[in-house]
């Protein structure tokens, strides 16, 4: 099945809607070892993406480009910039071609690799990259939105669970590595919440 501009716009709408409930939980998770602003930052980023009207794009690439530029105006935080940078990479990867749901695994993998090169984190550092890695694997062979949604939510929850008791090795939390054991990484928690929102019609 083809991945459409309408589906991307609907995904942004769902994510923006979900942030209403996620904001305070993410701020609280971030306040444990950080500044306590991850939720509010993502509200600005995703709100900006929704306001950029991805629905009006004439191609999937243009839609991702709109999301990237909106993210880049909304924040300078590392997580937000990585998110916007991933959108920019997706825009480049999908330029001048149609995109199928079956391509999504490879696209998420490319975004993961781009974010890794950009931000310097490695797999296993307990960051959003570990979520993307799990998502890329879970999406393999999935050919429509329903299959991808179910596999994505399973993978996100499994990965969050698997990393909870491991130490964080990236970002500010790396200075308090042992204290991060038992805590969800705020970026991973946000990723899980957003994947759940994307997969659920509301």
């Amino acid at each position, binding site marked *: 099945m083809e991945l459409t501009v309408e589906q991307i716009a609907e995904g942004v709408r769902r994510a923006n809607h979900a942030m209403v409930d996620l904001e305070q939980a993410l701020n609280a998770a971030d306040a444990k070892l950080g*500044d306590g602003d991850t939720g509010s930052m993502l509200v600005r980023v995703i709100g900006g993406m929704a306001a950029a009207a991805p629905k009006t794009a004439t191609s999937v690439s243009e839609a991702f480009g709109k999301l990237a530029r909106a993210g*880049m*105006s909304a924040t*300078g935080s*590392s997580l937000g*910039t990585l998110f*916007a940078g991933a959108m*920019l990479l997706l825009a480049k990867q999908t330029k001048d071609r149609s995109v199928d749901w079956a391509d999504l695994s490879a696209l998420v993998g490319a975004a993961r690799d781009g974010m890794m090169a950009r*931000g310097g984190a490695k797999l296993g550092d307990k960051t959003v990259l570990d979520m993307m890695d799990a998502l890329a694997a879970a999406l393999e062979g999935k050919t429509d939105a329903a299959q991808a949604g179910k596999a994505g939510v399973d993978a996100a929850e499994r990965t969050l669970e698997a990393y909870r008791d491991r130490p964080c090795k990236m970002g500010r939390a790396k200075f308090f590595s042992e204290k991060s054991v038992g805590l969800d990484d705020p970026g991973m928690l946000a990723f899980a919440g957003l994947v759940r929102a994307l997969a659920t019609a509301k």
Partner: protein
Amino acid sequence: MKKLMNDPAHYVDEALDGLTLAHPSLMRDGSAGRVIRRAEATRKGKVGIVSGGGSGHLPLFCGYVGQGLLDTCSIGNVFEGPNVDSCMEAIRLADGGQGILRLYGNYGGDRMNFDIAGEMLEDEGIRCTTVLGTDDIASGGPDEIERRRGVAGLIYAYKCAGAAAEAGAHLEEVTRLAAKAVAMTRTIGVGLAACRLPSAARPSFELGENEIEMGIGIHGEPGIWRDTLRPSDAVADEMVERLLADLPPSGAEVSVLVNGLGATPLEELFILFRRVHKKLAEAGLRVVMPLIGNYVTSMEMQGASVSLFHLDEELKRLLLAPAECPFWRVG
């Protein structure tokens, strides 16, 4: 920790409003007002020097926009990188047709934003180079200098790159001199009490009533040790010993920056400098242009940093060249 402010959401923009009202040589620019540039138009034919970083460190970063220093500076929220838009705008506004040196501290977020900004501008044909401040010796060993963070010593690189650009040096030369200034600068900090982000309920870290932290970073990043408070002379001795061990002197002259982190009285900085000066003299080093004051702060953090800038003839000439910004005047 009390703060005299209005809405935390307006903290940065209201500070920039006041800064530019007080200093007409600086102007806000960019779509969100998050670029500070020189009030006069960009000089054609001059290499542009662009910096940027999070707020909460004034005079760093944007306070060093001025003659013989920076051309433009992108500004992020408190302790947060400047967004891609402001970095792109800062680069465009500094473009005098001879290329741009991006000169800022080695932090992941700042790097990402400046790198993406550079990629987005590739089509516009603006040539950019990058030099990162890596002077904080507590944030990585001598064998992993590329991991070190940039702190107060960055202003020496501003000064040298700015002087070279003002004198008409081309981009490769300005870049070489900025990198050389970074390579010859070492800094170490000591923290006495934490700071609090305007939007946060609690300080970003805690230090006991009678505790100090050697090697603390300018966002409260953990340092080398925490122990009980000791006399200033003992702290000065350890700081100078660590700095000289990390970069043994190759010449006979150094500049010294004894920098307050925000809430330390000038008296305490001079007490510290007096001993630093003695230790350097004992090591056979002559102090050129000592700088004592609040040059790079961490809001209301209590403490100080000591930077040594090892000079040769070339760097000394650039350091002593005329420069003028609201917080630093030379010549």
